[in-house]
C-alpha cells in the first residue's frame, strides 16, 4: 500500500509541480516563497491522500484550490500586520523606457497585485498570463463562469485605479 501511495504521490508531483509553481510564483513575491507554497500544497496532498481525486483534471483542480487557500491564509496574516504600509506607486501606464524605470514599473505592478485577494489575483494571472479561458478557470476553481468574469472585471478596475 505504501509503495502505491509513493508511486501516486510521485506521479502527482511530476504531473503538476511545474504548473503549480508557475501559479505560485505569480501569487507571491519571490521564487523561495513560491517553492514553499507549492511544497505546502503537496504536503497537504500527501497528508490527505484519500481526498485527492483520481483523474487528472480533478487532481489539478484540487491542488490549485488548496494552493490558493493556503496563500489566502498567508495573505490575510500579512495584511493584518502591514495594513498601514504605503503602496508603491509609479506612473506605469505610459510605459517605461529605461531599465531603472522598467524595474520601478514592475515593482509597482507587483505591489498592486499584492493588494488583490489571492483568488482574484489567481484568476487574473491565469487569464492574462496563462491564457486560460473563463470556463476553464471556472471549472478549475469550482466557480460559476459569471463569478470568474466578475472577478476579472473587479481586478482590472482595481489595477487600473492603482497603476494609473
Amino acid at each position, binding site marked *: 500500500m505504501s509503495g502505491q501511495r509513493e508511486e501516486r504521490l510521485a506521479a502527482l508531483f511530476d504531473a503538476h509541480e511545474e504548473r503549480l509553481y508557475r501559479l505560485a510564483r505569480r501569487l507571491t513575491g519571490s521564487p523561495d516563497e513560491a517553492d514553499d507554497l507549492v511544497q*505546502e500544497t503537496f504536503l497537504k496532498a500527501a497528508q490527505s491522500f484519500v481526498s485527492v481525486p483520481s483523474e487528472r483534471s480533478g487532481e489539478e483542480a484540487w491542488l490549485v484550490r488548496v494552493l490558493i487557500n493556503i496563500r489566502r491564509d498567508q495573505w490575510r496574516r500579512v495584511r493584518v500586520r502591514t495594513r498601514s504600509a504605503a503602496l508603491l506607486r509609479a506612473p506605469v501606464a505610459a510605459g517605461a523606457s529605461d531599465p531603472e524605470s522598467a524595474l520601478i514599473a514592475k515593482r509597482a505592478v507587483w505591489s498592486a497585485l499584492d493588494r488583490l485577494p489571492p483568488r482574484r489575483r489567481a484568476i487574473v494571472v491565469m487569464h492574462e498570463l496563462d491564457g486560460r479561458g473563463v470556463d476553464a478557470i471556472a471549472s478549475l476553481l469550482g466557480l460559476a463562469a459569471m463569478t470568474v468574469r466578475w472577478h476579472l472585471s473587479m481586478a482590472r478596475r482595481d489595477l487600473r485605479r492603482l497603476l494609473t
Partner: protein
Amino acid sequence: MKSIPELLRDADPLGYEPPRSQTDRIRRRQAILETRPSAAPIRSRRSALVAIAAVAVGAAATGTRYWTRATDLVAAVRFEVRLAETTPGPGLREAEISGADRKIYLHEETVVSNADIAEARIVTGNPPDSIGIALTFTPGGSAKMAGATHDHLGRPMAILIDGRVVMAPTVRAVTSTQAVITGTFTKAEADRIVGGIIGR
C-alpha cells in the same frame, strides 16, 4: 498607454527569472515522498484542532508530547539553525556552546527556524539517560536543510534555542527531513521547548 494585460506581461517574473534548479526540485520531490500520511484527512481548521487535542491527550497518556503543525500557534520558543565554523572569519559571530567549554563562529543567515518545523517530540537522547528533542521539518524546511548541509560537510551546524547555542554537531551527511537535538535539558525544559517551538 499600456493596457493592464500588457503591464502584467511586462512584470511577469517568469518572463525574466532564470530556470529553477533541478537539484532543488529533486530534493523537494523526495521530501514529499517521505511525508507520512495522516490517520484521517484534515478538512477544516475545526477538525485540525480536534485532531490536535486528541493526539495531545493520547500522547500525554503515554508520557510523550507530540504536536502537529496543522493550525496557527504563536511560537513561544525561538528556534534557529545556522551554519557555523570552528575558526573566526569575516561576517561570523562568536558564540559559546551551552554546557561545553568551546566556542564556534556563526554565519549570519538562518537556515531554518520555527516556521520550518512540522513536528516536535521528546525522545531518548544520546547518551540514553539524557533527553532529546526530535524535529521533523516541513518540505520547505527539508529542502533548505538539504541545501545547506550538502555544501557544509565536515563543518559544524549550530542549533539555537532562544538565541543560545545548545549544540553544534559536525555535519556528517546531508540532513533533510529530521534532526534530533540533544543537550543538557531537564524534562521541564524539554517540555517547554516542544510545547513552544511550533508556530509562524
